């Protein structure tokens, strides 16, 4: 985008452009946004570098000893110094397992939203730009898809796949199933909003001039209309990532997502739930807190972004 700007003066760097923009200004003035961003970056970076940070490898059965199970975190008496946040029911170091779990949760959340965005934006652009029968058919499909709760669709789809393939095969490909089902179920969120902005943008002169210049519909949609529809897309994306992480956790909690041998935050909470009555609250509580904080900061960032960009979101 920046290469297309016709600016005779010296081109400021991309970073200083962002820094001095409206968004950058309001970000600097908003302590909640700064705090949320900082927390999010800390979680994201430590999750990304989990293999370097984590003292143990939770996927390596050789490093796990069942005799180490259910040690409490360091501030509770009876803790072992080598397990700072205690151990889970299988004797894995909780801190390492949480790092790896957060990594999986974030990965699934972001990939699922990328898939949603890709499907939704393409469908929304086509529906809005082409119009007519195609538009009404696609939007009716979006209505119907949206009328079924994502969680319900995901639960049924994953339950049937699990029963069909057996849990061995299912567990092996669980990441892909989760991304696919969360990704496909939520495309209308994007499609409706993108379509609405396309309808508004389509009437403007710059689109007409692009058409007169002889550009094809594909180029006009992607290079001219899409950049002008980005602010609602940003706002939706943050909320959707938070929702996708919650959905993934819920599905894993039900045993329809990541297996206990390769746990995401949801499956960790689920395996800890069986031990909550025997007093081992930390297996559930600590991953639970990480999950809530992660989702909360993403939601706070989303709120801030909505206030700043203030796009006209599609109201259902």
């Amino acid at each position, binding site marked *: 985008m920046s290469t297309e700007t016709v600016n005779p003066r010296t081109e400021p760097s991309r970073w200083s452009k962002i820094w001095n923009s409206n968004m950058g200004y309001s970000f600097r003035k908003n302590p909640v946004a700064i705090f949320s961003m900082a927390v999010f970056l800390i979680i994201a970076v430590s999750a990304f570098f989990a293999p370097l940070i984590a003292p143990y490898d939770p996927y390596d059965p050789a490093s796990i000893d069942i005799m180490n199970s259910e040690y409490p975190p360091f501030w509770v008496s009876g803790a072992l110094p080598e397990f700072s946040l205690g151990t889970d029911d299988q004797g894995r170091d909780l801190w390492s397992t949480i790092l790896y779990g957060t990594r999986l949760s974030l990965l699934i959340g972001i990939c699922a939203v990328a898939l949603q965005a890709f499907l939704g934006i393409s469908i929304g652009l086509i529906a809005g730009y082409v119009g007519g029968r195609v538009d009404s058919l696609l939007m009716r499909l979006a209505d119907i898809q949206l009328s079924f709760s994502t969680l319900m669709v995901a639960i049924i789809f994953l339950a049937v796949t699990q029963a069909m393939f057996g849990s061995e095969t299912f567990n092996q490909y669980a990441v892909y199933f989760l991304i696919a089902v969360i990704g496909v179920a939520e495309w209308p969120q994007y499609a409706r909003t993108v379509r609405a902005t396309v309808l508004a943008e389509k009437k403007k002169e710059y689109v007409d001039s692009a058409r007169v210049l002889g550009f094809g519909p594909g180029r006009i949609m992607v290079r001219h209309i899409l950049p002008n529809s980005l602010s609602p897309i940003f706002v939706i994306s943050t909320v959707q990532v938070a929702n996708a992480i919650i959905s993934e956790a819920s599905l894993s*909690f039900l045993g329809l997502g990541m297996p206990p041998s390769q746990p995401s935050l949801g499956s960790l909470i689920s395996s800890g739930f069986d031990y909550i009555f025997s007093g081992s609250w930390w297996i559930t509580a600590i991953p639970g807190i990480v999950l809530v904080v992660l*989702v909360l900061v993403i*939601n706070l960032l989303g709120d801030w972004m909505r206030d700043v960009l203030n796009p006209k979101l599609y109201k259902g």
Partner: protein
Amino acid sequence: MFAYLVKRVFQAIAVMFVISVIGFAIQGNLGDPLRELVGQSVSEETRQQLRDELGLNDSFMTQYLRFAGNALQGDLGTSYFFKEPALDVILKKLPATLELVMGATIIIIGLSVPLGVYTAIKPDSILSRIIMGLSIIGISIPVFLTAIMMIYVFSVEYGWFPSYGRGDTVPVFGYWETNFATADGWMHIILPSFALASIMLPLFIRLIRSEMMEVLQSEYVKFAKAKGINPRRIYFLHALKNTLLPVITVGGVQIGTMVAYTILTETVFQWPGMGFMFLEAVNRVDTPLIVAYLIVVGFIFVVTNTIVDLIYGLVNPTVNIARMGA
């Protein structure tokens, strides 16, 4: 309006058709009904003969038509595990789930309207900020985690509420046994209802707040204020009435969504409802029950959405024009 009604009902039927095809496809590919019927010990010949008798060798179309015909008459197959008609199994569990949804709905309506209106009237007060802050935290906590926290605090630590099951229920009629008749039943339903309500409550507070704030900017509210009408009357009578339309539409759709979330709350509280039953059926690969659940839940979704759309169309005539034009 009539054309809209016909269109909407036609769409509902089309969606039910697609759901039934999916259900049928699952039935055909998941598990082997013959093995459930006779076990492994039967020779290949008798097996083939049985397959013929059961109609498992018929074409896809004939099999589907038979499936759809039976489904329309309320026959969704027999559960492998319960050895009972699958629909009966589900109908027995349905009241437990519906009561849970009802309890949650009462909590949501009872809390979201006053809180939403208050935060809209006094957006800058400290209490409003606290409510809005709590609501974003509420959105960020998954239902199952709220449920676990509640069990840990109120059942394990304090022992105020029981942590699982329905407790004492009183039969009302047919399969319907109610929780709302005994003190024990009330004690059992309170935690699950609050857990289920926890996910929707923040959404509704925020929705009512934003709609209310929009309405409060409108001319007629300003006029009513200028006339000197009691503010309480303006807020709760004039303004709230116009806020409720979008709230009801969103609410109707969310009832369907709540059915999905009952699976989570029911699992945590071991509430003997439909969702809990469904997960058990999945673990047992009880195909007829899985398919029956899919069709019943699909039906609930389609019916609530159709009714909500129709109500919306009735109350708000502009919808017709917009939809017709599209």
